[in-house]
Structures are given as C-alpha cells and as structure tokens.
C-alpha cells in the first residue's frame, strides 16, 4: 500500500508553533532566567516584551540568557564512574557488540540493567523495548526525543553537542533490538548548535542505519511523545490518547520506540560494560547515573553526572557550591511542572520514588534553585503562565483550567475552594503530563508555601 500522508494545509498548523522564522535574537524567559532576572533586569524586561515567548534556550547556567550567548557550562563527573559522560566518539564498538548478540538478548540486557527513562516519567526502558520488540509489524521506528523543553535543563543539549555519536549508537542499538528500520531525532528548534553537530555526526557515522533529524518549531508540548509523533507526521501536535501506546501504534501508526536522548546515550555503556555493572551504580529502584544541570544562581552552575541516591543537599551544596548570593528559598527539580523541594527537605536522596514521596520528581534532571528575590506568588504566576502558554489545548482541564488559574492570579477571581477544585481536576483528568504537572506544582506550593499562596485568592 502506498503511504499517503494526509497533509492538511500548513498555515493553521504553523500557527500552533511559536518559534520565530528568522535567526533573530531570542531572549529566554524560562524558569532559570526568571529566578535570575535580578541579575540583569533590563534583559529580562526585553524577554517579557518579545512578541513570541521563549521558554528556555538551554543556557540556564548563564541565566538570564540570550540565544547569541555562546558560553558553555562546567561539565563534571561526580559518580563512581562516567557512564553518559564517557566519551565514545565515532567508534561504534557498542553497536557491533550488540549486533553480535540476538535482538532478544539486547532487550534482556536493558531489562536487567534496570535503566529507567530519563525523559521524566522514569518508565522502565527494557519494558518499553520489549513492547516494541514483540510487535509483529515489519515497519517500526525508533525516535529520540531531543525536545528538551523543561526550563532548567541543558542535559541533552550538551550530550548531543559533546558526544553526538553516543546518541546515534544508542539509537542504532535500540533499533537492532526492537527491529526498527529508521531512527528519527526530534530536535527542538532552539538547539541550533546541536543540530549542526548532530547532522555532521550522522554524515560521518559509518553505520548502515538511516537517521533523520526533524526539527521542532517552538512548542513545549512537543516534548510529550505523542505530540512529538504528530509533529513529525506534519500534523497538529496535539497529545494523543493512550491506549493505544506508541509501542503499538506510534509514528504513522507503526510500532515506535520513543526514548529521550540521555536514555539512548546510556545504552552503549550498558552494552559494553554489562547490565550488572550498570545496575551496581545508583540505589533503590533508581539505578545507574543521572545527569543534572544546575542554574546560574548556584556558585558552580553546570552539568554533572551523579549517582542516584546522593542527597539533594549534596548536589546543591557540595557539587553546586550553594547559592552565589542570598538564601535558598526552594529547589525546582525536573522542570517547573513538578513539586518544589523546600530547604527543609534537602536531605531527601535523589531517586525517583524518594522524590515522589515528597511531591517532587527527578523529571528531566534540571535543578533550578531560587532565592528570596522571587516571591511564591511571582513563581506561581510564572509557572502557570508558562503552562497556559504551552498547553496544546486538546483537553479541557489543561486548556481552560490553566487559563482560568492565570486569570485568577491577575484578578483574584477564584476562591481557594474553586482553585483547589480546578487543580484537582487537572491532577486527575488531564490528558498528559503538562496538566498533571501543573497540579503537582500547585499542590506542592500549597503544601510547603501555603501561607504565601493564600494571598492569591479572593
């Protein structure tokens, strides 16, 4: 059968995205830049007056930042050994090793490593691979989610810029394991340098596997895997309902393995060093290492590979060097659409379940500290505006709920009970993590900063 893409007219779909057409300078309005706005109030003001908002350029170590800023962050290994940061370059040794085993064996190895997805949800990677591996279809895809949109994260960006072949090798291994014939990297529009480096790497990679980069056009929700698949297909990038899951019916309705960049980048190491070696790193149900990115308010902003289990306090104080100035008011881990860690809970170990226990999340791994120059009310307004701006608009709670919350902050139109009712509906009925993330954030604020939040209501 001929594969006909239903190509609806472009203009309405283009209107979904906000990335500027030209190479004009973009000034970041992301969370790291927001909390650091005091460092350059004029730049922040310019950011707020841009026609199209820009939430995160992946330069949080230099926040408040702009797209012309070419500085690079500190990159260090603070785990027992380098996993993702072990540079492999264009040698595809891990791929050749993998191909000497059966695909089923590779899936078993990934399962045995207990690797969990690094995109935010922490879903067991091996289980996902198995689900795609199991599908009988003769056409399957692997897709790398390089739409690192969570404000505060510059992890995938640096992986792709520093060691692009690591991502390609991981994808090729995954494709071999699940039986996919093509690999697509969905790269966010803001990462122009990463694009050039990746494209060059694809051109020089001596592997018999087809890679394609598809560039985003500016939309946070495209980091959600099903919205991303719609975007790749040229459709309006709304979130799809699940089931069916992409493992069964993904890109163009074919079984599709979607993992984020860091997840794929971990795979070559596991193949080369064995799943047990990997599993020995980390703790509890969070095995291995994680890259975390620290924002500009820290003494040593940068990108660090740590092992799961390390207390958040050590990341902030020992590795990050504490705040440059002022006193810590809270730490936003894994993007703004998650819970905040108040200073009193900094001893919580860095792990999926452990952070979940205090209403926070590992998320993508961005760590944004904020100080007393940011009030809770301002933070809430910032996060909710961000969420409302980026909502795809498909589901009721996120489309209307977000907008209602933002409006109520401006005109105090909601009573506390009404606010809670909307938050609860968003938590329980949203279609994707954008809506539920807003609820997690709001619930966390209410739990740890209840007094400050009270000023927001009628």
């Amino acid at each position: 059968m001929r594969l006909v893409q239903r190509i609806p007219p472009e203009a309405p779909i283009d209107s979904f995205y906000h990335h500027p057409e030209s190479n004009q300078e973009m000034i970041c309005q992301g969370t790291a830049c927001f909390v650091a706005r005091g460092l350059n109030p004029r730049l922040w003001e310019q950011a707020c007056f841009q026609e199209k908002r820009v939430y995160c350029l992946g330069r949080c170590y230099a926040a408040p930042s702009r797209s012309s800023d070419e500085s690079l962050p500190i990159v260090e290994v603070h785990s027992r050994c380098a996993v993702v940061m072990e540079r492999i370059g264009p040698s595809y040794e891990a791929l050749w090793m993998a191909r000497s085993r059966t695909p089923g064996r590779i899936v078993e190895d990934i399962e045995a490593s207990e690797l969990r997805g690094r995109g935010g949800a922490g879903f067991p990677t091996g289980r996902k691979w198995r689900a795609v591996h199991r599908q009988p279809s003769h056409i399957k895809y692997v897709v790398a989610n390089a739409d690192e949109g969570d404000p505060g994260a510059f992890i995938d960006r640096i992986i792709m810029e520093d060691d692009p072949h690591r991502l390609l090798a991981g994808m090729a291994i995954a494709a071999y394991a699940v039986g996919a014939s093509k690999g697509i990297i969905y790269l966010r529009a803001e990462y122009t340098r990463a694009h050039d480096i990746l494209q060059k790497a694809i051109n020089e990679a001596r592997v018999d596997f087809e890679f394609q980069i598809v560039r985003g056009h500016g939309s946070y929700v495209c980091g959600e895997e099903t919205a991303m698949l719609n975007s790749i297909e040229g459709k309006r990038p709304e979130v799809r309902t699940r089931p069916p899951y992409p493992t069964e019916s993904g890109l163009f309705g074919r079984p599709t393995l979607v993992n984020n960049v860091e997840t794929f980048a971990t795979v070559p190491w596991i193949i080369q060093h064995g799943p047990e070696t990997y599993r020995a790193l980390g703790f509890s149900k969070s095995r291995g290492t994680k890259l975390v990115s620290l924002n500009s308010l820290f003494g040593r902003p940068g990108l660090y590979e740590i092992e799961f289990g390390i207390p958040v306090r050590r990341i902030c104080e020992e590795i990050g060097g504490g705040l440059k100035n002022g006193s810590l008011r809270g730490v936003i881990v894994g993007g703004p659409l998650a819970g905040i860690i108040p200073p009193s809970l900094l001893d919580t170990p860095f792990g999926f379940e452990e952070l979940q226990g205090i209403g926070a999340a590992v998320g993508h791994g961005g760590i944004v500290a904020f100080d007393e120059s940011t009030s809770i009310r301002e933070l809430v307004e910032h996060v909710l505006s961000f969420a409302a701006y980026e909502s795809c608009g498909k589901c009721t709670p996120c489309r209307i709920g977000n907008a209602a919350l933002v409006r109520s902050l401006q005109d105090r139109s909601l009573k506390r009970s009404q606010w809670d009712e909307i938050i609860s509906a968003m938590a329980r009925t949203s279609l994707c993590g954008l809506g539920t993330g807003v609820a997690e954030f709001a619930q966390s604020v209410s739990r740890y900063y209840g007094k400050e939040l009270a000023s927001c209501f009628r």
Partner: protein
Amino acid sequence: MLQVTINGQSREFPDGYSILQALHRIGIDIPAACFDERLEPFGGCRLCLVAVQGMARPVTACNTPIADGMSIETHAPEIEQERRTLLRLLAQNMPRHSVPAKEFYGCLREYGLESAMHGPAGAVDDSHPYIRVDMSQCIACFRCVRICADVQGQFTWQVWNRGDKTEIRPDSGTTFLESSCVSCGACAHTCPTGALVDKSILTHGIPQKWTKTTCPYCGVGCEMNVGTRDGRIVQIVPVMDAPVNKGHLCVKGRYAYDYVHAEDRATEPMIRTSTGWKVVSWKEAIAATAHGFTQALREYGPGAVGVLGSARATNEENYLAQKLARVVLGTNNVDSCARVCHAPSAAALKMVLGTGAATNSFDDIEQARTILVCGSNTTENHPIVGARIRQHVLRGANLIVIDPRQIELAEIATIHLPVRPGTNIPLFNAMANVIVEERLYDQDFIRARVAGWEDYRRFIQEWTPESVASICGVEADLIRRAARFYATAKPAMSVHGLGITEHSQGTLSVVSLINLALLTGNIGKPGAGVNPLRGQNNVQGAAHMGCEPNHLTGFVPIDAGRELVQTVWQAPVPKYKGLDLMQMMEAAEKGSFEALWVIGYDILLTNPQADRTLEAMRSMKFVVVQDMFMNETAREAHVFLPACSSMEKDGTFMNGERRVQRIRRAMPPIGNSKSDWEIICAVAKAMGHGRHFEFESAEQIWEEIRKVWKVGAGITYARLDHAGIQWPCPTEEHPGTRILHEGAFQTGARAALQRVEHVPSKEMTTDEFPLLLTTGRSLFQFNAGTMTLRTPNVVFQPTDYLDISPDDAGRLGIVGGEMVTLRSRHGAIRITVRLSPAVRPGEAFTTFTMPDVYTNRLTGPEVDEITHTPEYKVTAVRIEKE
C-alpha cells in the same frame, strides 16, 4: 467473552469493546462531548472518565479497552465531582443564549450547570444557507474538524493556534459559505453545541417525530431519519448504522428537501381545456385518463400507446406501471429513464456475466487495493460513495481515474487518465493489451472461468497503448501504468458512471471494461468487480421491476418469463416487441405513436434534441403526466395527475448495489396528491381491470412481486424492517448476496472475453464546431432540477454553467461570467461561461438542470447501437460571443 464488573454488577462483553461501548451497550449514559461513534476516540473533553479499580487516576472510557476482570465505577462521587468541574469550565465561556436541542446543553442541564454559562456572545456567521456558525458556543471538541477530515475528507474546518487561543475556522479565512465546504452537514450533525447548527431547526423548531426512510436522490441509497414537525420536514439526519452511508449524508440528501413543501407543488388533478389548465376532481381526472387511453387503443391499437415508469417512484409503483402497460393497455411499450443512463451497463453485464447489475457492493470499496473510477465524478454525483473512496485512498489505496476532467478524485489519484470523450474503448483495449502482453493476467482464473481467451489474445495484440495514445489523448506510459496497477495491485474494483455508457458505443464500452476484470480475475471476489453507479434512487428498480420493453420483472427476457408472469397475473403478456423511450419518440414523430403516460420523469428537459422531443410530444393525441410539479413535459400534457413525494408514502427502493430498502411515510400527502401506486390502481380500475389491481398497500404489491421475481422472493417487508437486503435472495432464509459470480456465472462456469472494435462517434469536432461538450450533473443540482432547484441549493449553483478551460477562454476572448451562445449541429442555447482548470482545452462541460437554459437543445440524435441510450457525452459545439 470478557468478564467486567460495572457499578458492582458483573457483565460479559466481547473482546475489543471500549469501556464506553460497553456502557452504551448496557444502557449506561455518561457525558462524552468529544465522542462520536463515526470517529476514532479523541480523549479531549475528559468527561467520559470512569474509575477503574487498581488505577490511580480515572481513565477515559472512550479510548480505554475493557479487560477481563476489570471493575468500573461510572458515577462514583469524586468522578461526578470532576465531571462537574470540567463541565463548569467548558460552560463558563459559552454565551447563555444557546441552542437547547443539542446534546451538550442536555448534559449541562443534567448537572445543574445551565447558569454556569456566562461567556460573551460572539459573531455569528450566517452566510451558509443550511448551517449557522457561532463559534462562541464552541467547546473545542474538534468533532467538526475530525468528521470533515475523516468521514467526508474535505478538510474544510481548520484548527488554529493552541491552548486557550485554539480556534476553529473554515478554510476560506472569511465566511463559511466561501470555504471549500461541500455542505454534507456532518459537522453540524456532530457538533454537540450550538456552534454549528442546522438552520432549519432554528427556524421551524426541533422535530416531533422521526421516520426512517431512504434518500430520494442518487442510487447510492443512503438511509436517513426524517424529522417532521406539524407535518413539515424540519431536519434530516443519517441513520448511524446504515450499511451504505454509515452515518453520513450529502448536501442533497440531508438538506435539499424543501421541494416537498415548495409553493409551486402541483397538488390538484388537472385537465387541459381550450382555455388552459382546469382543476378537476380525482374522479374526473382518472376518468379522463381512462377515456384517453381507451380511445387511443381503439383508434390506433396497443402499438401506439405507452407508459414511462419513474426512477423516482418505488419498486411497487414501477411494477404496477409495467403491469398496467402490459395488462391494461396490452402493450410492451414501457420504459424508464434507465434508457438514458445505465441501460448499457445492465445490458453488457447481463450479456457477458449473466446478471445486469453491479457485481459487488459499496462495502467492497474498503477491501480494494486499487479502485478504478471511470466516467464518474463520484464525489459530486454519488457523494457518499465518493467520500468512501476518498477516505480509502487517503488511507493508502491506489486510485486510477479515467475521466476527461480533472475531477476531485483525480486530484488524489495515483494515476489520472484524462481520456478524450468518446474514446473509452480504445483506452480499455490498450489496458487489456498491456495486461496480456506483459503477462499480468490471472492465468488460473482464465483457465477456470473465462472463455474465448486464445481468440481474444490474438485480437488484442494490435491494441498497443502507443497506437491509441493520440486517439484517446492519453500518454501511452500512463495507460501502461494504470493497467499494471489494475492487474497487479489486487483486488481491484471498478466503478463507472455515465461517462462510459452515454455514448454511441455505450454497451460495448462496458463490455471492454468487463474484459479487464475477466482478464485479471477481478470478479467474484471481495474488493473487486464491475460496478455501475446508478444515477437515481430507484433507476435500478424501475427497470428491474419491468419498466423495460424487452424484459419482465427481474430483468427476465419476456419470452423466458412469460409463463410465470401470466400465471400470477391471470392475464396475457403481449407478444409483440415493445418500443423503448427513444423509439416511442421516433414513432411519435412519424405519427405512429399517439398516447403516453409519463410518471415522474421530465423527458422534455432531459431527452437529447429537446426540439425534436417537443415536436414528438405535440404530435401525440393524448399525454398524461403524473408528477409533483408542472415540469416541462407537463406543459405539453392533456391530463395532470399530482403525485406525492417519497416522504409521503410507503414502499421500497433498490439501490445501485442491488439492495432493496424501505421508504416510509414521514408525513401525509400534501394537498390532494396521491401515491403513484394509488393513481395507477385507480386508472386500471376505471379501465375495467380492477381485479388485477386490487391493492390496499405497498406491501400487498410487494407480495405479488415476490411471486413473479424468484430471485427476490426471499425479501419481505418484515425482513426489510431490520435492514435492506441485496438480491439474489431467493428464500426467506437467504441472507442476501453481497458479491455476484463467486463460484460461477449465471450463464455457466465461464464468461467469454469479447472482441470490441472501436467505431468513432459521428459527433466529430470540425473547424466549425471545435469544442467537445459533455453534460452531466453536479454536487448541488440533480439532473433536471425539479427537486434541487426548489431548495436553497440554488445559492451554491443558481444556473447551468458552461465550464471551459482558461486557455480556450483566453483564445476566444471570453471571461468568466460572460453570457454566450453555445451552438451545436442540432441547436443553440444561451449560457454563462465559467472558467475551470479542471476542463482541458478543446473540451467543455455543462449541467442540464435549468429549463431556462435547456442544455438538451444541443445534444444530438446518436444513440448506443444496442440499448439506444443517447450519446449525451459527446456533442461538438462552438461558442459564439454575444
């Protein structure tokens, strides 16, 4: 079966059900604003959430499949609370004034949230004649967008922006009327709010009563529910589980019903006097009719009288019309408008395969890997089949379009062969040549089921694509590619329209198309076959019931069926050969045909050579017209008998895939009008044949039809109450037949390939008449515009237009909208020019809807040599600037 607990009760469901389907099945209703059973689950509104034991969060019932052992709560307090919150969020932006008849308002009412609506009123787009647009009432369920794309395939509704800035707009960027909308009305039907709403219910109120019936327009046979209020049709919606239309309708079926209530509806019997028409009683009118025919029979004999049945009337009525002709008038001079459309298809299919009807069904469309559309502008003239083909092609099937014009389907076709009008046979022969020469034929099928192979193989050798390319105006390579698709990407299904049949070699064109199916084994299988798209609701039935000079009911040749019919009728079937419509007109011109009864058929407007038809009519001594309107033909009649519409009576229609379906009376007859069958019975009685016409209901007539039509004997009204049935259906236990010729042909094990030579049309273009004109119908206007011209469809197409290519227009110095004289060898008309990039230079197209244009003054005398179907598709013309 899966065991599922719903609200504490254990239930069983088959695998594959969604939770929502399971709930619907056991009658549990939950709000689901973005759900429509015709569409893929969307999961946007989130209202259909239910609690499933073991899940941390509620799930949406629309997309979640049931699983064995699942325990579901549909109305748990927290679920209800969340629904209420979501409903309140949706309601808050809606203006308070709204359309209470739509489902979403019922939902708000149920949750006591009507007062939550306090959004500002928005701008109303009132441009469309049938649909009001008020996007301030939109709840962004995208049902309109999705049904437009995934059912109709039109992509008219577009979604702009994102988040709470999301907006749905027509693709015009301006008004809805100016958009690409084809007015199928699916969006207004599915819209759960007042954002898109049928204007009719705003004007006339919502229906008090619904009646399930079958569409009166084309031969697709869509089932519809007709909503009436105080005896007036106020809304028509599709039947959701209808086998043909599956919950869809087109602009004609859904909206173009105002003809029923037209002010100029003729509802009184009338007799022409020296001073003009005089309204009379039924008694007088019947007596006048009986008298007129009795006198004609006495003076001129049965060879000089005839009856024309109606493709718009029911099977029962057509059966009675031919019975009256044969029993009461003693003549086989009976015909119907099948003569001017698909008689060649019926003849060719009967001749080669043994059954004169479509071999397959519309449900085969979705099973075909390749669809070959020939001489049919399907999306306009059989819109529901067109939409189904379109959807299937958008989902990956191959489509080959053979049509002179760049029709809508050609735009999405894998290959479009823009054949020159009148050259179908060389084109089909060349495709056959490729199939034979490249050995793409189905050897096994030919060995088992085909005769005449060696002979045909020799014959087809010389028909190379290169040898026909210049005749057909199609590149040889395109012909080769099309042949390869048809022969190798199987199953391949052909559907054809009047572009194949309305030619001087119409029947043989169909035969050469059948040859392709026989060569490739594309017959007797799902997703294959040769399928004429019948033009009118019951044109298949009219001829099949016996309104045909050479055939009795069941399309049985007279001599073969005579014995059975005579036994049932207790009356003789006339022996001598009858005249068909064309022969009747010729005989009338020569003075040997004197009396004609025309039922629901405007022959004057639709026959070719209108001027000659008029002379023929005027030369007859006695003409009766039975119709809903004083049509062009009626102006020449002596007696007018007012018939009622299909909305006002019971009976059955037969669609183009051999499916007999019920029509049901939705309202009493308007004025003094009567059903055709009642009128026919009354005349028969008045002529002394009451005992042969003692029928009290349509069903009683059907019972007699079952006795004479063995192949349909298993079809009863009781069975039809559930669903239509496709013949052959010989017994009451027989399920009906979707695909013909599965194991063998009616005529035996084998069907013979036929050598078909090409005889070019006599209508040649010359320097004097340089353009080739084809005529046809359009999306908005149906045949003679008797029905559609009396509806707001005139907003979309107010008149007949002459479509010509911008190239020709440029050369002639004509602009769009200009009035010109169009002249052929046979006559001239005045018509407005429209520039159409779909028409090739040297060709032209127009409809034949308007009495004040009278397109058929141009068409000529040539007819198909076998069936006498006129050559409407080829007329040499020239444009004269005024």
